[in-house]
């Protein structure tokens, strides 16, 4: 889909420099429009696949990124479903209280968020490492 507003405002863009008086005209930074790609740029060149080393490295990269993402996602799911079933099958946990509020409320209301953030940070680092490895291999 094209970005409709880009068209919408194309009028002032067509002659941005002429709008400005005198010497400011020179100083005005060039406008770059961010817009949705036109249909032409959406198509990716269509040639028979090349079975080169490059192709192989890309597959390796995809596989390692997918393995990483699945590992983190599985961990997250296991954690959430685990907590959920723990609360159902072992309700004694609710008897533990901190400042008169039952433990499950602390875990669900506060405790899980730092874990999610840490998981996100670790994943970002590991994903960047995978990409670095790909770059060094594909260059060398």
């Amino acid at each position, binding site marked *: 889909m094209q970005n409709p507003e880009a068209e919408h405002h194309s009028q002032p863009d067509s002659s941005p420099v002429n709008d400005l008086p005198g010497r400011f005209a020179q100083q005005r930074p060039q406008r770059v429009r*961010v817009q949705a790609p036109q249909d032409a740029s959406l198509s990716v060149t*269509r040639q028979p696949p090349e079975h080169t080393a490059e192709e192989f490295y890309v597959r390796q990269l995809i596989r390692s990124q997918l393995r990483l993402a699945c590992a983190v996602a599985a961990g997250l799911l296991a954690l959430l479903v685990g907590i959920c079933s723990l609360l159902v099958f072992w309700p004694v946990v609710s008897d533990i209280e901190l400042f008169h509020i039952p433990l499950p409320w602390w875990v669900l209301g506060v405790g899980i968020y730092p874990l999610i*953030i840490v998981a996100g940070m670790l994943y970002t680092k590991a994903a960047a490492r995978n990409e670095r490895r790909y770059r060094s291999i594909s260059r060398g």
Partner: protein
Amino acid sequence: MASLFSVAALIVVCVTTMLIAFYGLRISRTTSDFYVASRTVRPWWNASAIGGEYLSAASFLGVAGLIVLSGESGLWFPIGYTAGYLMLLLFVAAPLRRSRAYTIPDFAQIRFEDSALLRKLTTYLVVVICWLYIVPQMHGAALTLSIATGLPGWVGPIVVAVVVCVTVLSGGMRSVTFVQAFQYWFKLAALVIPTLFLLARAIPEHAASERAQSLSTQLESVTTMNMYETISIILALLFGTLGLPHVLVRFYTNPTGSSARTTTVIVLCLLSAFYLLPTTLGVLGILYTPELGAANESDATILLLPGRLLDGVVADALTAIVVGGAFAAFLSTTSGLVVSLAGAISQEFFNGTVRGFRISTILATALPVLIAVLTSSLALAGAIGNVFAFTASTICPLLLLGIWWRSLTAKGAIAGLLTGAITCGLSLSVGIFLPTIDLWWVHLLRQPAAWSVPLAFVVMIVVSRGTRRAVPQNTDRVMALLHVPDPSSNS
């Protein structure tokens, strides 16, 4: 008196939003050219904008309401909304940014150039999802306005629709990143201030040992959801976030794939910080306004709490702040959705012309207003949970398999999308009319995500296997485009 403050807050929020929309373009020209900037927008700004757009009526009012309604189970909703972003980070953020796709139909077209049908189908799904998502925002507006001012219910949706239409039609959405980044912080402040005041009042009261003893009893007394429902909701929220149309558009302003990842991690922090507040307010709601849960008005919890705990001008001012924040939530989410929706409609029916975009904008806002006025509100967070279940059963498998599985075919994708949309849509619409009885098949119908999401995945995979020859020729190149790191980034 109370309503006077609230009306003033409402007017300030609406007028500010429109002013920023009108003058945003001019401001951005004289200071730093905003759209140049948006390519190098710092991840912090971008993340604030994503947060601003994502935190809707369901988050602002609904989370606290759901905690009052279903106690401990309500806590899973904000966890799901946040963890959904983690899933987005893991599977979608960087590849989708690199794909140069602006919307989900764009992605479908990049992956399967030849299938006009798939693009059309995803467009229709996006339209349905946006509408389903806008309606609860309108319900929230109706509720907020009638509680705060006593005006009839239809005024709220109309106010939101008019402001959104004016903003979008004036072309002001160009500065949308700017507006929404501010709206995140505004919404945060609109909950931080009342929470602090209310806690300052409630904590000394509860320190008296007798009431403190009753605190945990009260928290435990609320009936919770059963295990199947909880797990189904967790799945819906985790996988549903991946496919939200207005969320995906935001990733386009990240300069590279790896900066899209950084942005998402910051979004995780912002969402976590935000959700502590409705959670706290929900706990206060169980203590001070427990009767709202029984009366099915629990979404009003945050609006009524200040009046219940405090009195005089302080209570009125705090209520007004909450009303302002709530309207900021309705406006930001709705305008984001309307832009996605109007874009999709105008592309599909009006060849993407400017005039078509304008007509589509009006269509995109008018229909949800009509639906919202004619129907009454489910629990807001629950209604949004249903939308997530629908997205998780349709768009999510398309994106996940499209990004990570080279053997996906257009036919497989279409079959999976249709299966997910029909099964999930049907069971949700049947489920609405069923009474809340404790039978296994009622639970299955009311919370379909746990079976409809795997079903959609399985159908997509099986049909793709069956049509193995139809894998597009350029798949390897598309995959490389999605996954090979951007040349300029040095991380």
